[in-house]
């Protein structure tokens, strides 16, 4: 299976490769270099072009996209109802972009459509890195804090906890990201439990079977 990644930084990409491989239980082949977006809403803006490019110009089977939730609405079970779409939920938005883009594309490269795996890190990917290390950092804690009108932590605090500085160099950021996902790679169940935005990514990945994707 050949995968493409659309992420916001080389550090995110390095960590996601490890997490994707951990979920799939093998070493998938990645399109290199990875595709890069400049944060939100650039991820959603670029996704149709990336999907069309993958579809017509490459033999990639799937696109993995992960974005930070920041302060937006967090995806929940109600959003999974058939036909439901929450306009402020980034997961709902990215799924809609994928659905609307691929349905218009005729078969190419011997396969039907480029499938997707979409995850949203709440509020930022550094929260995933802290899973299992900082029990106070979970998606539920973030949502609860927002309901009560006080964020339990800020993005800046999460970054400081992961990198030990608010101005990490890129190699340091990559090393910290790989250290944290390396700790979790043998068992991602805790990450799936504490971060439903990761569990949805994992569910998408597990739903792929190369045969289901061939026509």
């Amino acid at each position, binding site marked *: 299976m050949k995968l493409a990644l659309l992420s916001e930084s080389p550090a995110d990409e390095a960590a996601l490769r490890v997490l994707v491989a951990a979920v799939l239980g093998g070493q998938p082949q990645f399109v290199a270099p990875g595709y890069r977006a400049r944060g*939100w809403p650039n991820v959603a803006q670029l996704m149709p072009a990336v999907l069309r490019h993958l579809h017509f110009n490459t033999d990639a089977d799937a696109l993995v996209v992960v974005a930070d939730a920041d302060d937006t609405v967090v995806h929940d079970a109600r959003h999974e109802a058939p036909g439901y779409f929450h306009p402020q939920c980034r997961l709902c938005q990215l799924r809609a972009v994928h659905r609307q883009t691929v349905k218009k594309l005729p078969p190419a490269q011997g396969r039907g459509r480029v499938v997707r795996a979409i995850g949203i890190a709440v509020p930022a990917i550094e929260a995933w890195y802290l899973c299992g290390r900082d029990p106070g950092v979970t998606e539920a804690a973030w949502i609860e804090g927002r309901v009560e009108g006080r964020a339990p932590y800020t993005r800046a605090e999460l970054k400081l906890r992961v990198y030990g*500085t*608010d101005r990490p*160099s*890129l190699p340091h950021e990559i090393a910290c990201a790989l250290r944290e996902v390396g700790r979790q790679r043998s068992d991602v169940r805790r990450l799936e439990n504490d971060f439903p935005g990761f569990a949805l990514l994992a569910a998408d990945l597990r739903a792929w079977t190369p045969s289901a994707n061939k026509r």
Partner: protein
Amino acid sequence: MIASIAFRKFKALRNTRVALAPFNLVIGPNGSGKTSLIESVMRLKTLAKLPLATGAASRQRADGPAIEFNFAPPHEGITAQLGCVSDLVCDTLRIIPEEAAGWAALRDELADLRSYTLQPEALAGAAQRADGARLSSSGHNLAAVLAHLRSAAPAAFAGMRAELFRIVPEFAGLELVEEGGQVSFALQLTEGGQVPADELSQGTLCLVAVLALAFDPDPPRVLCIEEIDRGFHPRTLREVRDALYRLSHPRSAGLDRRPTQIITTTHSPYFIDLFRDHPDEIIISKKQGRAAQFSRLSDRADLGELLGEGSLGDMWFSGILGGVPEER
């Protein structure tokens, strides 16, 4: 080092004040005072070497251009005033209070301000081997600086090389060729063969220069660089920012040394994007007619909402942040 600069009638800076942080990225249209800001710092350096103006002769020309500097601790008690005859000639420096005890120490630090407008053609040239103690304003002696770094600070030189090859993995070696008192440099390709400096891309040359500055074991107190993004691929700009942070925030890089204050300018939305987590480091220079004003991005009350809606670079390009050219 420099806490703030106030301008009166100096070029486009008719009446504005800017507070400076350890790292300052100045954005705005051409002619909006970005270069004037850096020029004022270099005039302070030049005049600090000369005898001070004192007594009645030192009073500011009542209506002429003037620039006033305030400093961070331990020099917070001193104000330096540049008096100017015109936009082009600032010829007096007055210190308040006149007999400030800390002036001698401050003057020594002001001698250590540097300004760069890196010129790729200049960076590629051969240089006098003896002329390598500090990089010149255009970077024309880069090869000599590299040779000096190699002999005077081998560990820093090794660190700089390692960083260069990590960022540009197509290269694996840096060759210095000395001949008749001149030195030039070339980069060795990972796949074999070498590329002489004058055949390197502009971005690679500028990267070598920025890394030579970032790995200087004795960096200046203040470093000004015009158009820092010049020649770089947008994906490389993160590395350029990190190299500058190594100077302005050495502890973040694990270095135990005194910080270098950075003042730099850019026209690249991609470079601006990199300051999403530190909007306090962006200074916007807005031009209205012939007058320009400085403001800090972090002073905007709606900054949080703006950051949730798009990248800083796109926001700047759109005009929402100001600092865009006027149109008829």
